[in-house]
């Protein structure tokens, strides 16, 4: 029972990290119609900038703003220099151009920081355990990550449904020409949204630093999982991104924890080991296939 609870919490924590990435990706696609493969690179840049700042200053509390700033600045530069030229283009050009960006960023990081993974310390204030239920200690840092994830989700919801900028984002994703005709500087809005998405990706990257290794290629792994999340949720929908992140994060964590165990209870020997490992690593793709069979446009389809 304790194991189940602990895995549920791990699943929730992964879900919220995935949501940080999925929200940015789905916003950028929903409002600008751009598929940005280099979103994972922004996550990597956040993590590297954070790890670098932590190593220089020795404190996580400076790593956090460093990672956020690096990701947001690179994101804004990316929009101004590259992505801006891709709005009117077909998806194929967008895929190719942002694929080129990934190659560049991976090469750049490998060249400047080396290929060996960097390690980041958990901040001392959060390095302990919290007993959330009698006899169930859980790392304080992971709890804090979940707190941040929930806060961001609420903040995004508030921004999009209650503020002027959110209204413009909603209107822009619906009828771009109309918003432009009403005198809104759509170019500035796009840069802002892109930088916001980059900021969220950078946040995910810095926060993940202390619990996973920071290395070249970390962005792509998580990017493809993020794709699964937004495909399941419905591309362009923040609500869909949240639902998809929960579903995929839970399925992945619980699948990895329990599928090999369950298989072992009625199969035996190396076959169960091999099959369990293989099955648990593909479970999220099977979930995606299932969702697509039932709802080809995701759980929360966006019209248009």
């Amino acid at each position, binding site marked *: 029972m304790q194991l189940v609870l602990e895995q549920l919490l791990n699943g929730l924590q992964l879900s919220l990290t995935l949501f940080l990435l999925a929200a940015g990706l789905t916003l950028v696609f929903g409002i600008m119609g751009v*598929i940005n493969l280099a979103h994972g690179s922004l996550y990597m840049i956040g993590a590297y900038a954070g790890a670098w700042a932590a190593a220089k200053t020795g404190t996580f509390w400076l790593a956090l703003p460093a990672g956020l700033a690096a990701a947001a600045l690179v994101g804004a530069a990316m929009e101004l220099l590259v992505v801006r030229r891709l709005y009117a283009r077909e998806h194929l050009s967008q*895929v190719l151009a942002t694929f080129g960006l990934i190659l560049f960023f991976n*090469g750049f990081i490998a060249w400047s920081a080396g290929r060996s993974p960097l390690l980041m310390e958990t901040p001392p204030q959060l390095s302990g355990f919290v007993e959330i239920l009698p006899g169930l200690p859980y790392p304080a840092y992971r709890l804090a990550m979940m707190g941040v994830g929930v806060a961001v989700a609420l903040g995004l919801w508030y921004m999009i449904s209650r503020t002027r900028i959110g209204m413009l984002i909603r209107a822009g994703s619906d009828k771009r020409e109309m918003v432009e005709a009403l005198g809104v500087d759509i170019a500035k809005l796009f840069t802002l949204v892109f930088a916001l998405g980059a900021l969220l990706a950078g946040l995910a990257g810095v926060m993940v630093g202390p619990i996973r290794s920071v290395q070249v290629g970390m962005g792509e792994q998580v990017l*493809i999982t993020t794709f699964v999340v937004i*495909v399941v949720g419905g591309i362009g929908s923040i609500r869909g991104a949240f639902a998809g992140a929960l579903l995929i994060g839970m399925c992945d964590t619980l699948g990895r924890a329990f599928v090999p165990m369950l298989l072992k209870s009625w199969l035996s020997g*190396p076959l169960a*080991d091999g099959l369990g490992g293989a099955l648990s690593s593909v479970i999220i793709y099977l979930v995606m296939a299932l969702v697509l069979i039932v709802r080809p446009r995701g759980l929360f389809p966006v019209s248009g």
Partner: protein
Amino acid sequence: MKLTRTGVFTIVVALAFLAVPYAATLLGSNYVITLATRVAIYAIVAVSLDMLVGRSNLVSFGHAAYFGLGGYAVAISAFHLANDVPIFGWAGTNEALIAWPLAMFVAGFGALIIGALSLRTAGVYFIMITLAFAQMLFFLFVALKYYGGDDGLSLSTRNLFAGNRITDARTFYWICLAALAICLLLSWRILNSRFGMVLRGAAASERRMAALGFPVYRYRLAAFVIAGMMAGLAGALWANQNRFVSPDMLSWVRSGEFLVMVIMGGLSSLVGPVVGAAAFLLIESYLSGWTEHWQMVFGPFVLLVAVFAPRGLWGALRGKGDV
């Protein structure tokens, strides 16, 4: 018959391929043949991918999956034969005339299942879903420790071709070139057939073709399977050339590279993908000989092609309006 610019360039490309073994003799180096063999193999993949991306406007970002399935089909058949362990009561094989069609069948079957699911969607969904399914197969082969997992699987020797050894670089080159020629011929026949017309029509307007009574989904699925089988053949050849397969064959980076080849060469032209594959491999081998961090240079190059030359090298060579 009036010779168009396209015709002239096509002949030049064909002559270049035919001249490779003689050039190698002149230079006294087999490296030229090895490189040209790789070009021929990648060109098969690029031609097959162009059938989807160029002709049918179906941007598959998971084409490496079928390439890898073909490679693994060959390697696993040889693995069971070499280790004397039957698989489902079958001893395995080292004969190309059995293993290569098997590779095509396995890749085609994979394409059938993935295509059947992915083609229910369109546009950006299709891109992400083909990518995700390819990644699923990637992780599957990483998890299959029995077949080497992450480390991949070596073949002790190349396949026999109708009982003959094909270890000689020239012999193997001619086989790969013949395979490429057959694929190009097939692609050209499809382009001008009713089947190809429906695919191109559906790329322009799916609704119109559906209104004309064509089952667009089935046509697209057929194209997806044919393209998958061609990529599977290329994977089988690749496994033979390197006598090695690994999950890296199915990685998403490779899928991206295949797309780069097709677009760099020029979409929906017969020879464009071949030119693209050649250009890609030449640039890669030049840059990687120059610096370990060659991707730092290659990435921006890809970006520039995507932004400024979406018609590719072939498109620039052949001029406007010429098909």
